C-alpha cells in the first residue's frame, strides 16, 4: 500500500504543530519517522488514522484520496496503529485486550473464545513469544504489554503498520524478534512507519527516513544515503557534537548505603553504596527488579528486610515523605502515572515536592514560588508557553524535564533516576546528561536505572547489574567494560574478568 | 426598634397592625409538612377549595418533611407579606421560631394537626393523635379480646405522628394486648409490605396489626392476603384506606378529616379578620371507620 500525505497542517489553539507537512510511504518499505519531542510525529499519525482531523491537506492511499472516520475505519482499510501511549485495559485479560472491539462471534452473536484463543496463539508463534492469555494484562511488564500490542496489529492483516515508539520498553531479545517479524512481513509486502528516538535502531531496520522539525518535514532520504550526524543535525537544527558528554567524576564520602535489602518475591539481599558526586548505573533485563529496589528504598513499596543508611546513620524510611526528609529524590520510570499531574500546570508540578520550603509565616509566598519555578524552568531549558500551562500539553522530553526540575528543586542530595531518558529525543537527552553531570559536580549522588546500555556505559562511574532479583555484580566502569560484559551478567552469566 | 449591635429580632422587620379584611382581599400563606402523602394533600384541598370559594389568594408550600425547608418556606411567606399563615408543622418545637417571627411581623398563625411549642398561635385545628391511638387500641381489645398477640408498624422514627399515635396506642394497649414486635416502615407502603411479610414470618401467630398510618396498613394488607383473619387497623382515613375498610381488607381505620381541617383553618382566618373571636382549639373530629364484619 502506498500512502501520500500532502500539505498537512494542524494547530491546537495557538500551537501550530504541523505546517504543510508531506510524507510518502511506499509499498513494502520500512519508513522511519524522526524528530524532536513535540515535532508532531504522533499527531501526523493520528491524522492519518482519523483520530484527529487535519486543518488542511489531503491523504492519498494508492493515489486515491481517502478520509478515515477513526482508527477502526483505518484498520478496516488495512492501516493499523500501535500507539505510543499504551492503549490497553489493565483489568482485562490478554485475550480480551487483543480482540477488543473485534471479537469473533459465533452464529448466536456470542463471543467465540475458542477461535480467538487459537488465533492469538498463532500470532504469538510467529512472533516467537508466549504469554498466558488469561493473565490480566496490567500484571505483565510494560515490555510484554508492548509485544501484545504488536501482536494485535499483526493480527489485523494490515498492509501498513504504524509503530510509535514500540521499543522504548523492550529488551534486546524482544527487539530482535520484533525486527525479524518486521522483515518477514515486509517481504510479504507490508509497509511500516517506524517512529523511534533510537537512531541505531532506525539505521538497522529502516529503508527510508523522514525527519520532522518544528512542524515541517525537513528531509527525506534513503538510509543507505545518510548517516547519524546528518540525521541529528536535521532533527535538532544544529550539531550537538557527541551524544554523551565527557565525564570527570570526583567522588566524595559514601552518602547512601543499602544492606541486605529484601523483598519476598521481587529481589534478594541487595547491597550497594553510592558516594557524593558519583553515578551508580543499574542495568538488567526488564523485570529484573531494578525499579522495585528503588521503590523500596524510597518508601513507595514496603520491603521485607534490610537497612538503608544515609551518611553512615541508619534511617527509617516508611514513605516517600520520609525519603524526601532524608534528602532523597526519585524520578519515577512512569512519568504519566507517578511523576506528573498531567492536567496541573508546570508550576504546580514543579513545586509539589518543595511545598514547605515556599512557606513564609504559614502562607505560601507567591513571589518566592514564582522565582523558584522560573529559575528551574530556565535552568533546565524547559520549552513551555509559560509556567501556567498544563504539564500534559508539553512534549515528552519536556515533561521529563519538569519531573527532573521537581526533584532538583527539592534539593535532593541523593537522586534516583529510573529510565530518565525513555522516549526523549537526542537533543533533550544530551541536555539531561549535561544536567546530571552538573548535579554530580555539586556533590549530588545519583543512581541511574536505565535499559539503554550505551547510556549506562557512557554515564556511570560504577554499574550494578541485576538478574532476576539478584545483584550479579557491581562493575567499575573506569576500565574497559563492554556492552557484552554487562549483557552476560544481566542474563545470569559470570563476569569474565 | 433601634438597631442594637447584638440583637435577636430582625432589625429590618416592621410590624403591621390588625385590620379588618374581606376574604377576597386576603393573602393566605400555607406551609404544609409534606405533599407526598394523600392526607396532607387533602388538607391542601380543604384549604384551597374553601379559600377559592371566597376569592382569597392562597400560596401553598411543601416542607418536604424537612424542618429546615419548612422554616425557610415560612420565612419566605413572611417576606411575601401574606395576611395570615396556616402552618402544618413538620415538628412542633422546630416551628416555634418561625411562629415567633410571624408574631413579630404581626401575621396571625393558625396551625393544623400539630401546634407550635412556643410563640402565639391564633388557633390549632387538630384531631388528637393520642386519642386516635387510644381508639385503635380500644377497638383491637374489643375485637380480639384481652392478651391477643399483635404487631405494630411504626412510622418514620422521630416524627411526631409516630410518637403521638404510638404513645396513645401503646399506653392503652399496655396490659391488654401483647405487642410481640414493633418495626418501622417509615410510613411507606412498600416498606409496610416487606416489613409485614417479615413480621408474619417471625410471628405467624399474630391476630392483629396496628399500623400508624394507612399507607403502611395497605402494604400490610397485600402482605397478609393469605391470612385475611388478621385484624389490620390503620390510621388517617385516606381514600385508599377507607376503600380497604369497605372491602373488608382492613378492619378499621382511625379517620381524621384532613379536608375538614383545612376548611376549618381557613374559616378561622376569616373569622379573625372579621374581628370575631377565634377559639384557640378547634377540634377536628376523629372517627373510627370499621369494616362491616367487625361492627
Amino acid at each position, binding site marked *: 500500500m502506498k500512502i501520500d500525505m500532502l500539505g498537512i497542517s494542524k494547530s491546537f489553539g495557538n500551537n501550530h504543530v504541523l505546517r504543510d507537512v508531506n510524507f510518502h510511504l511506499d509499498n513494502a518499505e520500512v519508513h522511519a519517522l524522526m524528530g524532536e519531542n513535540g515535532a508532531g510525529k504522533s499527531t501526523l499519525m493520528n491524522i492519518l488514522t482519523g483520530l484527529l482531523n487535519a486543518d488542511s491537506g489531503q491523504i492519498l492511499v494508492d493515489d486515491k484520496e481517502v478520509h478515515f472516520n477513526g482508527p477502526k475505519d483505518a484498520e478496516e482499510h488495512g492501516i493499523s496503529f500501535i500507539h505510543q501511549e499504551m*492503549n490497553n485495559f489493565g483489568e482485562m485479560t490478554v485475550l*480480551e485486550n487483543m480482540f477488543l472491539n473485534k471479537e469473533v462471534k459465533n452464529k448466536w452473536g456470542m463471543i467465540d473464545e475458542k477461535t480467538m484463543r487459537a488465533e492469538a496463539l498463532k500470532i504469538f508463534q510467529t512472533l516467537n513469544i508466549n504469554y498466558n492469555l488469561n493473565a490480566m494484562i496490567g500484571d505483565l511488564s510494560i515490555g510484554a504489554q508492548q509485544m501484545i500490542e504488536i501482536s494485535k496489529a499483526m493480527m489485523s492483516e494490515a498492509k501498513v503498520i504504524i509503530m510509535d515508539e514500540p521499543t522504548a520498553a523492550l529488551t534486546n531479545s524482544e527487539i530482535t524478534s520484533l525486527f525479524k517479524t518486521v522483515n518477514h512481513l515486509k517481504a510479504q509486502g507490508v509497509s511500516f512507519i517506524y517512529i523511534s528516538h533510537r537512531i541505531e535502531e532506525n539505521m538497522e531496520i529502516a529503508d527510508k527516513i523522514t525527519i520532522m522539525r518544528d512542524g515541517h518535514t525537513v528531509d527525506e532520504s534513503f538510509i543507505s544515503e545518510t548517516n547519524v550526524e546528518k540525521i541529528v543535525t536535521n532533527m535538532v537544527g544544529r550539531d550537538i557534537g557527541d551524544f554523551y558528554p565527557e565525564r570527570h567524576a570526583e567522588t566524595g564520602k559514601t552518602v547512601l548505603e543499602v544492606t541486605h535489602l529484601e523483598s519476598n518475591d521481587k529481589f534478594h539481599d541487595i547491597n550497594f553504596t553510592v558516594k557524593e558526586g558519583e553515578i551508580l548505573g543499574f542495568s538488567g533485563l526488564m523485570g529484573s527488579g531494578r525499579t522495585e529496589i528503588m521503590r523500596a528504598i524510597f518508601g513507595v513499596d514496603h520491603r521485607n528486610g534490610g537497612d538503608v543508611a544515609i551518611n553512615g546513620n541508619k534511617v527509617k524510611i516508611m514513605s516517600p515523605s520520609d525519603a524526601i526528609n532524608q534528602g532523597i529524590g526519585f524520578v519515577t520510570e512512569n512519568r504519566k502515572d507517578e511523576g506528573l499531574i498531567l492536567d496541573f500546570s508546570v508550576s504546580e508540578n514543579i513545586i509539589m515536592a518543595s511545598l514547605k520550603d515556599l512557606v513564609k509565616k504559614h502562607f505560601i509566598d507567591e513571589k518566592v514560588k514564582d522565582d523558584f519555578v522560573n529559575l528551574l524552568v530556565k535552568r533546565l531549558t524547559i520549552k513551555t508557553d509559560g509556567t501556567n500551562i498544563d504539564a500534559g500539553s508539553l512534549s515528552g522530553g519536556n515533561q521529563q524535564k519538569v519531573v527532573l526540575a521537581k526533584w532538583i528543586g527539592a534539593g535532593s542530595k541523593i537522586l534516583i533516576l529510573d529510565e530518565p531518558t525513555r522516549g526523549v529525543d537526542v537533543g533533550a537527552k544530551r541536555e539531561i546528561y549535561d544536567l546530571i553531570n552538573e548535579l554530580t559536580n555539586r556533590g549530588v549522588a545519583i543512581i541511574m536505572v536505565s535499559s539503554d546500555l550505551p547510556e549506562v556505559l557512557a554515564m556511570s562511574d560504577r554499574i550494578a547489574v541485576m538478574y532476576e532479583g539478584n545483584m550479579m555484580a557491581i562493575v567499575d566502569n573506569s576500565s574497559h567494560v563492554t556492552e557484552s560484559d554487562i549483557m552476560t551478567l544481566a*542474563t545470569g552469566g559470570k563476569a569474565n574478568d | 426598634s433601634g438597631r442594637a449591635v447584638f440583637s435577636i429580632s430582625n432589625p429590618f422587620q416592621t410590624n403591621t397592625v390588625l385590620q379588618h379584611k374581606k376574604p377576597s382581599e386576603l393573602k393566605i400563606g400555607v406551609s404544609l409538612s409534606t405533599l407526598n402523602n394523600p392526607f396532607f*394533600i387533602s388538607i391542601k384541598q380543604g384549604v384551597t377549595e374553601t379559600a377559592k370559594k371566597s376569592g382569597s389568594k392562597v400560596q401553598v408550600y411543601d416542607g418536604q418533611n424537612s424542618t429546615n425547608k419548612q422554616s425557610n418556606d415560612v420565612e419566605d411567606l413572611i417576606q411575601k407579606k401574606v395576611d395570615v399563615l396556616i402552618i402544618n408543622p413538620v415538628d412542633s418545637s422546630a416551628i416555634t421560631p418561625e411562629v415567633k417571627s410571624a408574631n413579630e411581623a404581626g401575621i396571625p398563625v393558625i396551625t393544623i394537626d400539630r401546634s407550635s411549642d412556643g410563640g402565639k398561635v391564633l388557633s390549632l385545628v387538630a384531631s388528637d393523635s393520642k386519642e386516635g391511638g387510644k381508639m385503635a387500641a380500644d377497638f383491637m381489645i374489643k375485637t380480639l379480646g384481652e392478651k391477643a398477640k399483635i404487631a405494630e408498624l411504626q412510622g418514620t422514627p422521630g416524627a411526631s405522628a409516630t410518637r403521638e399515635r404510638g404513645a396513645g396506642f401503646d399506653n392503652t394497649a399496655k396490659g391488654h394486648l401483647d405487642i410481640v414486635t414493633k418495626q418501622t416502615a417509615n410510613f411507606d407502603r412498600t416498606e409496610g409490605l416487606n416489613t409485614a411479610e417479615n413480621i408474619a414470618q417471625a410471628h405467624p401467630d399474630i391476630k392483629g396489626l396496628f399500623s400508624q398510618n394507612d399507607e403502611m396498613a395497605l402494604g400490610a394488607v397485600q402482605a397478609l392476603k393469605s391470612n385475611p383473619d388478621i385484624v389490620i387497623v390503620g390510621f388517617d382515613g385516606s381514600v385508599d384506606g377507607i376503600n380497604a375498610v369497605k372491602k373488608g381488607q382492613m378492619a378499621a381505620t382511625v379517620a381524621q378529616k384532613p379536608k375538614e381541617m383545612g376548611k376549618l383553618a381557613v374559616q378561622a382566618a376569616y373569622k379573625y379578620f372579621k374581628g370575631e373571636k377565634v377559639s384557640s382549639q378547634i377540634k377536628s373530629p376523629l372517627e373510627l371507620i370499621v369494616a362491616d364484619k367487625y361492627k
Partner: protein
Amino acid sequence: MTSTRNEQKVVKEVKDRKILQQLSGLGPVLALIVLALITTVMNPSFLDPNNLLNLLRQVSINGLIAFGMTFVILTGGIDLSVGAILALTSALSAMMITSGVPTLIAMLIGIVFGGLLGGLNGLIITKGGAAPFIASLATMTIFRGATYVFTNGNPITSKAMNNSFIFQFIGRGYFFGIPVPVIIMLISFFILYILLHKMTFGRKTYALGGNEKAAFVSGIKVNITKTWIYVISGIMSSAAGMILISRLSSAQPDAGTGFEMDAIAAVVLGGTSLAGGRGRIFGTLIGALIIGTLNNGMNLIGISSFYQQIVKGIVIIIAVLLDRRKKA
C-alpha cells in the same frame, strides 16, 4: 531470555490470580452465608422455605435495579435517578391501565418509557459532558417532580388494576410455586449475564470503565455504548416499578425513594468497583441478597428500628473492608 523460568512465574502468577478471583467471587457469598447463619441461629424460621421465597421476592425489586446499576457502575458512572424513573413510569402504566389500556401493553409502554428516560440521562452525560452523579441527581429531581405533577401527589389505584389477572400475577403470582417477581429477576439476570459476559456489549462496558480514552482509540463508540447502558438502567428500573405496583396494587408517587442507594450498595457489596472496569453481575445478585437477608433477618430477629440502621451500616462497612483487604 530465560523463558522457562519466566513462564513458570507467569503460570504461577496466573494460578494465584485465578484463586484470588474465585475467592473474590466468594467473598460476598461468604458474607451472605455468615449472615444467613447468624439469622438462623437467632430465629430458625428464617430457613422456612416460605420465608426464603418471601425473601427472594423482596429482593427482586432491588435486584432488578441493581443489575442495571451494575452496567452503569462498571463504566465508572452512577445513576441516582433509578427510583424516580421507577415512580414516574409505574405511575404512567397504572394510569394507562386505569383508563382501559390492556395491562401488558400499558406495562410495556411504561418500560419503554423507562428506557427513554434512561436514554435522556445518557445523552446529558455523553453529549452534554455532565458528570453522571450530578446529571442523574438533577434528572432524579425532575422525574420525581414530574411524577407529582402527573399524579397530583395521589396514589393511583383502580378496579381495572385489581381486576386484571396479569397485573396481579406480575407481582403477586406464583409459577410452579415460585413467586413471579423472582422468576422475572432470574430471567433478567440470565439475559444481562449473557450480555455482560458473553457478548461484545459487555466487553465494551468493561473497556469504557477501564480506560475510556483507550476505548475510544480502539474504535468503540463511547457515547452510543454509554447511552445504551443508561437505557438499560432505565428499563430495569421501570420493570421493577411494574412489579412494585402489582405488589402494592397501586402506584405511589413517592415510590422508589432511596432505592438508588440500596441498588448502589448491592452493586458495591457484590465487589464491583465504583471506579469502573472491575466487577461482576453475579456479585450484584449476591449483594442484593445480602441486603435483603439483612432487612428480613433483622425483622425476624426483632431488632428495634433505631438499631437496624446502625447494624446495616456496620455490615456494609465490614463487607466492603473485607473485600478491599483481600485485594490488597
